[in-house]
């Protein structure tokens, strides 16, 4: 039975319905309420108690079980009252001074504790945010360039193959580059992180396919204007900030020669929202653009003859293609786009990827 409970807890935690951090927070809250801790109220209680005790009564009680005792006590009290009042007056002054100091210290401590709480909250927020942000900068989903391989290759091939090399960012292990090269296109790739080569020796693959490690923005910035025959932007657009996306498009417009192809493969925001944990969606630096936004950005950057193609959600079976899901929306140069999609490899999920592609116009 306990094993079943442990498994249940594991599943609930994996689903985010049971949160170890919440339990730790509760422990922390209760610990702070225990005696001797900062929020136990013990200081306030003690201060109140001391305040009450500082009031000293000079009138000594005279009650007695003996009838004569009451009288004797009363006489004694009256006889020494002048002395008692003198002493009590001084003690009262003394205790009141001490209480005043204690109250001032309490106020100052309250201020310090207040700022500490604020500081602690900030530190906790930053500490809590660090591991989550690490997840955000490396989202596990990407647009699927492999779905549009033939469309992109056809578009590039229909232009001049001598216009320059074609860059694929982000190239991963080089499958797309390999495919383009097989079509006679001088393609090379760049990726911001090292991707394991499932086909074998990574070093050999890098050398043969010309795969490079680095930032696509840095790489494009270093190229001569008009030096590229085309650019295929893959997964990078799914995690870059909006500013970086804009910069990327402006660079593509400058670095790709006239007539060259600029293709963007992204993920539909709706699919992205569905597949990502909410906290990641909210904090993500790569909030994805809708295809219309890319079209607008490309158009404003001087890239025309725009084509939009999207692949629907679902499972794509190897070799079966996903023609039905390909829905050319724009009539512009639609003939340049192959309607047939044949993703390499086995079945894999399609995150409603889309392709927006155009040519550099003068």
């Amino acid at each position, binding site marked *: 039975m306990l094993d079943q*409970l442990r498994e249940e807890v594991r599943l*609930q935690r994996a689903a985010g319905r*049971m949160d*170890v951090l919440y339990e730790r927070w*509760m422990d922390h809250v209760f610990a702070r*309420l*225990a*005696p*001797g801790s900062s929020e136990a109220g013990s200081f306030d209680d003690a201060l109140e108690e001391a305040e009450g005790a500082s009031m000293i009564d000079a009138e000594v009680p005279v009650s007695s079980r003996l009838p004569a005792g009451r009288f004797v006590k009363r006489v004694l009290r009256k006889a020494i009252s002048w002395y008692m009042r003198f002493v009590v007056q001084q003690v009262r002054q003394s205790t009141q001074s001490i209480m005043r100091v204690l109250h001032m210290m309490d106020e100052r401590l309250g201020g310090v504790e207040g700022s500490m709480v604020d500081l602690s909250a900030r530190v906790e927020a930053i500490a809590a945010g660090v591991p989550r942000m690490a997840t955000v900068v490396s989202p596990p989903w990407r647009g699927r360039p492999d779905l549009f391989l033939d469309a992109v290759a056809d578009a590039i091939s229909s232009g001049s193959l001598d216009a320059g090399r074609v860059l694929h960012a982000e190239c991963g292990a080089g499958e797309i580059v390999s495919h383009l090269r097989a079509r006679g296109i001088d393609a090379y790739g760049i990726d911001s992180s090292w991707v394991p080569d499932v086909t074998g020796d990574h070093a050999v693959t890098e050398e043969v396919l010309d795969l490079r490690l680095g930032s696509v923005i840095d790489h494009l910035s270093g190229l001569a204007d008009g030096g590229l025959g085309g650019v295929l932007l893959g997964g990078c657009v799914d995690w870059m900030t909006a500013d970086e996306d804009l910069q990327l498009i402006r660079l593509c417009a400058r670095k790709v020669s006239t007539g060259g192809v600029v293709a963007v493969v992204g993920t539909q925001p709706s699919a992205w929202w569905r597949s990502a944990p909410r906290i990641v969606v909210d904090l993500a630096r790569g909030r994805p653009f809708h295809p219309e936004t890319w079209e607008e950005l490309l158009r404003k950057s001087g890239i025309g003859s725009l084509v939009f193609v999207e692949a629907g959600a679902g499972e794509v079976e190897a070799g079966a293609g996903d023609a039905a899901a390909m829905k050319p929306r724009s009539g512009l140069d639609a003939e340049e786009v192959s309607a047939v999609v044949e993703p390499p490899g086995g079945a894999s999920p399609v995150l409603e990827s889309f392709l927006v592609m155009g040519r550099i116009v003068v």
Partner: protein
Amino acid sequence: MIPTFAGRDAIGSHSLEVRQLLRDAGYASNIYYLNSTADVSGLGAGISAMPAKPGRDDWLLYQLSIGSPAAEMLSSRSESLLVNYHNITPASLLEQWEPAVAVEVAEGRQQMQALAARTKLAVADSAFNEGELQEAGYGSTAVAPILFDPRSFGARADPATVERLGEMRSHGGADLLFVGKISPHKAEHDLVKALAVYRRTYDPRARLHLVGSPLGSTYPRALDRFIARLGLRGAVEVTGSLTGEQLAAYYACADVFVCASDHEGFCVPLVEAMHHGLPAVAYAAAAVPETLGDAGLLVELPKDASLFAAGVHKVISDGALRSSLIENCRTRLESYSLERARETFLDVVRSAVGDPW
């Protein structure tokens, strides 16, 4: 001899049952106390009324559960000594919250050790307690259950309380119940934590009822603030002490009995829950596993609020498990019948004292 003889107290009731048992068996038996409550003071006599010169065959059965001057007085008595140990809460669980009570229980532990040498037989009401006796140096020990009649739990449920709880239940949500002192060693705050997790994960309308009088004021105040801090004011009810009829209503309207105690020498409320056919979920601390047996779900230590909440969910939602636990409650309860307990207790006493003739 009992330090404090109180009517609505498990050890007070036990003492009355023991006296009756011994008298029925042919022994002359009286209760002597240091303090008593008004409802039972006439059923015994003060320690000062004890015979100055006891007979050669007289025995003294001391009910040990806390430090008391009564234990000091034992050294001046010449009777053969039996100790009936009901457990003493470790001071470490109380000293942070109620230092004065912690001093008393620490003193109780010292007295327990001091009495070991002259005690002919020490009777514990659980194997867990017997282990503590042996650790304290008692050579001759035995286990005999605390004497109480589970049928006495059968008070008629107070209709007004049933109606009020029924109104709450009509809005949905499970009802979790704990009965015991509001005290640090009963760890009600761990029940509040488990409730918080349970509400977030399974049942946002679930409620927790804590029935019992407070021990001191520090822990109850912290518990109250904790409940407020977790936003559970409307979900946790701290009732204070209740009448038997009101308590029966709470048992009748609960879905599960929950126990997060760090220390229990026996835990009578677990048996009370069995009487009401109420399955329990409890952390496996101290004597709880021994008392509960298979009449509930034991959650292993260290404490884990998520695991506990999952256990509560299982007991509430798994019909087959729930039915089997309720059936186990019935069979387990039989082992606590007064007749059986009296028989065991008498056998143990006879083994030391001999027959009355």
